[in-house]
């Protein structure tokens, strides 16, 4: 009975969504909105358009990856909020699990895991760092980079019972978060606008380009890595 009723509700919901199909463009035939057009041409302030990779310089935003330019520059405030969501939930995991009884895991981490973590870990961390440093040029950026680092930390936890990083994690997360806000406040001090990109944007496609975008993405990478490692550590702690 319950299943039948649920199926009915679900069917109604799917029918509702299908009835909205005439409103949205056919699959693969979407058209760019004026907002997206301006973001791609880096033309919000009216001096962009016709961008050439490796040549165009001193645009309003110098990131070759348009998604990054939206996430970290045009809509940077969303990203600050998103980092705050992650921060809050990491904090909440700590608060909620704080009174949990500790019990030992019992099983020794096996030898193969320990040795292979020793080899893999530096590579994983390096790859994570690469992903968030090149976030404005290639796919990737702070969020996947941070997650990759957290995955490395998770391996470290699995291979070593005594390992504890929670103090460092709190420190890194606090500092990188504050630096993000401070970068924003610097913009407020320099030109009276919160989170403005106040550094020169350089040539599209260079590593040192697009002003504060790589700086913020590196901070996000550290922060996300620290927060997710914190969550993982908290969940792993007493096994």
């Amino acid at each position, binding site marked *: 009975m319950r299943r039948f009723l649920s199926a009915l509700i679900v069917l109604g919901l799917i029918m509702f969504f299908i009835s909205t199909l005439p409103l949205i*463009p056919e699959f693969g035939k979407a058209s760019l909105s004026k907002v997206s057009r301006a973001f791609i041409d880096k033309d919000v302030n009216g001096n962009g358009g016709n961008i050439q990779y490796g040549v165009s310089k001193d645009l309003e935003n110098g990131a070759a990856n348009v998604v990054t330019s939206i996430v970290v520059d045009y809509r940077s405030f969303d990203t600050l909020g998103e980092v705050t969501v992650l921060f809050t939930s990491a904090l909440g995991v700590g608060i909620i699990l704080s009174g949990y009884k500790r019990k030992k895991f019992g099983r020794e981490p096996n030898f193969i895991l320990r040795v292979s973590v020793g080899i893999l870990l530096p590579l994983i961390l390096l790859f994570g760092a690469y992903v968030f440093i090149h976030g404005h040029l290639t796919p990737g950026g702070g969020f996947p980079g941070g997650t990759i680092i957290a995955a490395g930390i998770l391996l470290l936890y699995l291979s070593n019972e005594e390992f504890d990083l929670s103090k460092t994690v*709190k420190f890194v997360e606090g500092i990188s978060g504050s630096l993000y806000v401070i970068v924003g406040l610097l913009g407020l001090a320099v030109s009276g606008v919160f989170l403005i990109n106040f550094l020169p944007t350089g040539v599209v496609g260079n590593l040192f380009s697009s002003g504060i975008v790589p700086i913020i993405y590196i901070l996000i990478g550290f922060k996300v890595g620290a927060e997710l490692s914190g969550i993982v550590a908290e969940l792993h702690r007493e096994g």
Partner: protein
Amino acid sequence: MSALLIAVPLLIAFLFVPLKNKIKYILPFVALFSLILILKLPIEQVNFLGGWKAPFGITLVLDNSSYYSLIVVNIIFFLLSLIPQIIEKDLSLIFLILMASINGLILTGDLFNSFVFLEITSVAAYILSSSKRNYYGAFKYLILGSIAGAFYLLGTLYSYIGTGSLNLADISKNINSEFLAVVPILIFIGLAVETKIFPLAGWVPDVYASGSALTPAILATGVTFSMMYLFGRIFITVFHGEFLNVVYIFGLITVVVAELSALKQDNLLRALSFSSIAQAGLFLSVISMNSYESLTAGYFHLLNDITAKFVLFIIAASIGKSFIKNKTTGIAFSIASFSLIGFPLFAGFRSKLLILKTAFLNQNYILPIILLFATIIEIAYVLRWNIKLWYPDNILPQEKEKTQKLSWNVNLILLIVALVIIVIGFYPDIYLKIAQNIASGLTNYRAYVTNVLGGM
């Protein structure tokens, strides 16, 4: 400058992660700073974050309605920060984040940005509601809230497809009637959990009645107010009052169901939670009439309700079974509860009268009947609880020993708020002015659009 209202609490929250035990004593200063900053800000100011102009970047809009909403919310936070007893030790950081996110929710002029702030607010609320080991209630709230958030996101995307923009003013200008048939449904489901509409309000009693004083004292006042503000902003300013007929019906159903459930409860906190749901339903059905007068009446009533609930929830959660040791607290409780039922001379009377007047002006006779019905039930249970708490019959001596005396600062703040209720009962002008300003800001959507987009 209005970005500071969000940036400063966040910065302090981030900075104090390693030493979170000290932060409790900083809370009042942060709240006071926000309050002073708001009073110094000029009205009718639009802040383009990152320097990107209106439909492209994210804007923070300070107009009449958001300005006065900010004042209300920040006063609540300031009062709460002066009662450090009820803030459990780890929750101070959550308190700061909630402050930042609610300021953001009120200020933001961007639909997706409001989704982000909605999520921050909900995450902070889930953590708050898990205090006092109320894990199952918090889990239920989390699942419901997240599914609702998913629907809100869908609504955001549909309006992006329909208008090519995420800016509220741009959507308000460009949205066409085809999309107005779909987007409001999705956004309504998305907001129904936080605004406590009947089928999705099942989490409220479990969360509010967990026994913690802070949880209902924030969620039923500050968070509810900002959600109601967002609801008005989206449905009145952006959707021009489309879809409000459905909201009206849902609101009235919520009032009836919640009042009947409140009557049945034998736990004071649960009864108050149901009363909170009922008042939310009443508010939504009043603003559904979509005129300047009805919005004024609605927000005036909401202000009275959150003032009364502030007092009632803190007392109900921190006092035992009677007022034997806390006579002054009892007086504050009685004042607030009489205001809740709309007893003449108290603040609630004024707003209920105003609601009746607007309903009759709009030739709406169903709302007054429901309102009178709800008031009768409210009188029944409020009187019952007052008698029960003032004259407890079979109270054991050891229980009498256990009830603690509330400390002086709690009593003082509760008495001041209770005094405000009486003052509003005689001179409603202060609350009325706030409500009128919010209403005029929300209804005047042409001014909002030109304010944000410039004279395009």
